[in-house]
């Protein structure tokens, strides 16, 4: 039995006259892993930022559990709402004036950090480093650790493998798969990379022209007759 977690209806968002999302509908179910795919600039990041409250949308609504429309939350409740999400940002977004340890402490004050470091397979010595001294692959693993450490209800991963070489990318995918499947976290992954879709996403939504043009089980993607989706996948491979 799938339990509805987030319901998005007729969501529209534009930036200075440019419509990015046009009456988009999408449902996210609890403990499932959803992939959002689509061309660059199609509004994937904007969609996730509307969901986690970082961007205000123009019209439509997003409901979350018992919250009817997150746009109507006052600023205090909105801040509380945002903390339900653990987010791995597109470029990790680690605080570069702080050490890795201080970065992780932002997510959780008192806890043993060595366990989470084992989870993302990094040595303990990394804690004293500064983000700018680390490769982007390591930064993304720290970003992932920071997102998971706060025990989020929803995990949002914005292009976890983009900009990494295939081997490191593969490592990150397996890492996410392990963490997501182990903890049964509801996960939304924005990606260009079909391997992440097949490896750990139960469902996939394909975004095109500001709408969800295809939605279904990830393993059914190749059976789809949706022309833009087929083109998109062929373009990638």
């Amino acid at each position, binding site marked *: 039995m799938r339990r509805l977690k987030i319901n998005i209806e007729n969501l529209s968002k534009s930036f200075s006259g440019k419509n990015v999302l046009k009456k988009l509908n999408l449902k996210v179910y609890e403990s499932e892993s959803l992939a959002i795919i689509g061309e660059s600039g199609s509004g994937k990041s904007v969609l996730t930022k509307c969901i986690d409250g970082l961007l205000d949308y123009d019209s439509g609504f997003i409901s979350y559990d018992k919250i009817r429309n997150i746009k109507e939350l006052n600023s205090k409740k909105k*801040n509380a709402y945002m903390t339900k999400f653990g987010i791995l940002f597109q470029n990790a977004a*680690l605080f*570069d004036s702080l050490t890795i340890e201080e970065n992780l402490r932002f997510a959780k004050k008192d806890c043993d950090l060595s366990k989470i470091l084992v989870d993302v397979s990094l040595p303990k010595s990394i804690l004293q480093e500064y983000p700018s001294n680390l490769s982007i692959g390591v930064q993304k693993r720290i970003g992932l650790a920071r997102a998971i450490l*706060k025990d989020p209800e929803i995990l949002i991963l914005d292009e976890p493998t983009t900009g990494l070489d295939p081997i490191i990318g593969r490592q990150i995918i397996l890492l996410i798969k392990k963490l997501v499947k182990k903890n049964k976290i509801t996960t939304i992954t924005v990606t260009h990379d079909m391997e992440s879709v097949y490896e750990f996403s139960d469902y996939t939504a394909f975004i095109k022209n500001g709408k969800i043009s295809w939605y279904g089980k990830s393993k059914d993607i190749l059976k789809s007759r949706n022309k833009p989706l087929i083109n998109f996948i062929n373009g990638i491979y």
Partner: protein
Amino acid sequence: MNQFLKKFINYLKKIGDLSFGIFCSIGEIVLFFIECVKYIFLDKFYPKVFLAQLIKIGYNSLPVVGLTSIFTGMVLALQSYTGFSRFSAESAIPNVVVLSITRELAPVLAGLMVAGRSGAAIAAEIGTMKVTEQIDALKTLSTNPYNYLIVPRILAGLISLPFLVFIGDIIGVFGGYLICTQVLNFNPTVYLQNTFNFVQFLDVFSGLVKACVFGFIITFMGCYHGFNAKGGAQGVGMSTTYSVVSSSILILLTNYILTSLFFDL
């Protein structure tokens, strides 16, 4: 004729857009100001960040402010000597030096120097955090960016500028003393007597009040432009330029207003 009308309407439209834009930015700045003031009193205070900013904005600016003040004091003494010796009023030099330094030059020059130094750094740092989504990350990690980033910087500016200016006052007067006693053969004791007997509490105090206001302007403009930076490295560059230009202009403007207010006292 039709052509001319079209051009004229286009011209009007441009003026309209421009004034609309100006009002929009003023509105945004006022809203940002209200938000900042609100969070000075609300929610969490981060003493560690505040101390770090005090050191960055205050302590680390000491060399530039000291250097500016001493040279200004020296030049002031030389120039007023040129003028005053023409009608044998050399004894007024200490008065001119101490008045100009404490009332105008130390606050304004320190303000402009710190705007270039710390205001730009604040805009660049916060702007970079904005465009690399670090500010978004703060929000989802239950940290209010106003409390964490902006309030400590504004308070540090408010507090450190008066200290910097006070030290600048002393160094500036010392610069004048140096030139007069070493180059122009003044009697050191008489010079100091003339200085301290003449200067009033209000002279120094008005300078320090100005410094407070400038400290606020510098850090506020740095935070505002950084917080609204858009679109990558270029956007961050623009935000630092805007922050330095706008705070310099505001410093000169409010300096005039404050001087005329104090002048009436």
